[in-house]
């Protein structure tokens, strides 16, 4: 009898069973469910079911982040509906405009903990794997069902194990590791499996960097992605977790559908070209490509270490094109203020936005003009993603975004770091 994967263990627990195997169909009770600006639309589906009260309002979190503060009267109306719903239903965890992006805020607030199951009506809910939690994206109908019943059917996924080996070279980040994986195996490479990471590379990655990997696995077609929590994670949570948790680890003899190894030590910075995150190439191949706007932010790369990386590159220099910096949360913003990172960015000519998703999905705060190219630290570069169909988007790590802002073309940050 072989052992169990992370997904098998955690989903069995969520279904109240002793064990489960890939392929089993379970009714799972997540520890936390969350939504964002789409909560008003979910409320309408919820009421259609005939339910009237959210069954576990203390397990529900709502963060306003996608279009904040409201750019139009319609968005404002949507936010108002959600605030009224939060009050009516007694939803415990509500984060209003300016607190930050749902994935970042729920991590900072200790709302999701290792070994827990969290379902979010956002495709990047895979993010929570950075804490060793099972994070899964669901549709709006499914979130309505979760509010109404507290449970959802889940097919236990097969697992792809990826071992990351070696220390990343200077200038190579978790973003490059993620883009490498997506580029190597394609946007459907995970085939809706669970992706379990392991290997010595993780010990070189800070909490801020670790979050990038499972976040990006949404672009790999993963159902969830998992990093084994260690002392770095436990320390991060020490002042944040206000309830006990039990980290869950896969068995050594777990049954995997596939195993892969990535030699991280040999990787160089990577850029994803328009119009898909799996359309990757080496940074060296695209140096000199003209860019009109640089965007640093999002749930992928809007954390403190990302702002700090950009500050190192632009320190004492002036940007040549628009550099839009949007911290992923108010906590990130406060830290960047207290350390002087924000001062450095503003001195270099950056525009600082209110914590939230910013222009990532084209709502506001940095929509490009037709034919303007953006280099972005986000996770998606689909055609039209930032609100304009004929505006190409390049994805890269924060160092490359900052260096490109200084020159108006895709640039190697190393020349500014020495």
């Amino acid at each position, binding site marked *: 009898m072989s052992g169990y994967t992370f997904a098998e263990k955690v989903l069995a627990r969520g279904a109240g069973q002793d064990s489960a195997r890939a392929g*089993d*169909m379970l*009714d799972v009770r997540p520890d936390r469910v969350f939504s964002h600006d789409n909560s008003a639309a979910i409320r309408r*589906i919820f009421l*259609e*079911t*005939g*339910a009237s009260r959210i069954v576990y309002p203390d397990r529900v979190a709502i963060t306003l982040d996608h279009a904040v503060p409201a750019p139009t009267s319609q968005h404002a109306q949507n936010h108002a509906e959600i605030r009224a719903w939060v009050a009516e239903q007694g939803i415990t965890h509500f984060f209003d405009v300016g607190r930050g992006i749902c994935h970042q805020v729920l991590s900072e607030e200790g709302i999701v903990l290792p070994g827990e199951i969290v379902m979010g009506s956002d*495709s990047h809910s895979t993010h929570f794997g950075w804490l060793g939690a099972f994070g899964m*994206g*669901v*549709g*709006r*109908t*499914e979130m*309505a*069902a979760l509010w*109404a*019943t507290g449970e959802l*059917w889940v097919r236990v996924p097969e697992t792809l194990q990826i071992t990351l080996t070696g220390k990343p070279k200077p200038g190579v980040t978790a973003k490059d590791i993620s883009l490498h994986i997506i580029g190597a195996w394609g*946007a*459907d490479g995970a*085939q*809706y499996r669970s992706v379990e990471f392991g290997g010595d590379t993780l010990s070189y990655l800070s909490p801020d960097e670790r979050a990038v990997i499972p976040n990006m696995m949404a672009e790999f*077609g993963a*159902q969830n992605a998992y990093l084994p929590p260690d002392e770095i994670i436990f320390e991060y949570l020490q002042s944040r977790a206000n309830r006990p948790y039990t980290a869950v680890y896969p068995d050594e003899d777990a049954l995997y559908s596939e195993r892969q190894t990535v030699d991280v030590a040999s990787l160089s910075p990577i850029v994803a070209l328009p119009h898909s995150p799996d359309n990757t190439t080496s940074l060296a191949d695209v140096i000199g490509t003209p860019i009109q706007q640089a965007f640093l932010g999002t749930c992928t790369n809007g954390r403190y270490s990302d702002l700090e990386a950009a500050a190192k590159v632009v320190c004492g220099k002036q940007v040549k094109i628009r550099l839009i910096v949007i911290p992923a949360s108010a906590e990130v913003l406060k830290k960047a203020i207290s350390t002087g990172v924000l001062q450095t960015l503003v001195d270099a000519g950056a525009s600082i936005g209110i914590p939230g998703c910013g222009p990532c999905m084209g709502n506001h705060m940095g929509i490009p003009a037709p034919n303007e190219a953006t280099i972005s630290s986000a996770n998606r570069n*689909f055609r*039209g993603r930032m609100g304009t169909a004929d505006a190409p988007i390049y994805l890269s790590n924060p160092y490359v975004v900052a260096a490109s802002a200084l020159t108006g073309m895709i640039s190697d940050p190393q020349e500014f770091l020495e």
Partner: protein
Amino acid sequence: MRTRHRIWVYGDHINTDVIFPGKYTYTLKTPEEIATKALEDIDRNFAQNAQQGDVVVAGRNWGCGSSREQAVTALKYCGIRIIIAASFNGLYFRNCINQGIYPIISPDLYQGLKTGDTIEIDDEANLIYTNSGQFPIPPISDNIRAILNAGGLVPMLRERFNA
């Protein structure tokens, strides 16, 4: 019971923008309106001529891209109740079940078939018969069958809350 179905055949990696274009996401709201745009960019005949009981047959990674639920609604309101694909995008697969559409994974069935052909489905023997042979229907669990039988997740919950 063994039933006959006319089929509509499509290829690999058909994304949800093709099944229901994103530009209509916020302008078309009723399922009947949504259905008029089904597969508009690859097959204009489909929305006009699909009939109740027709089956969509596709290749790999059907429904990839955005998780928008309208990409299932559009086919459902054209009369589709069953989609057979070599593989499905995970979110699309879930959206099918939650809307009462039966997604059948059959890796090889689509090869050699064309739009307008007929197939037969035997839901007791769990077999699909095509002009090139017979193909097994993978088993589904009781809880998924319950959702499908109710017509989807919302009607199932409605039964539960109004019972």
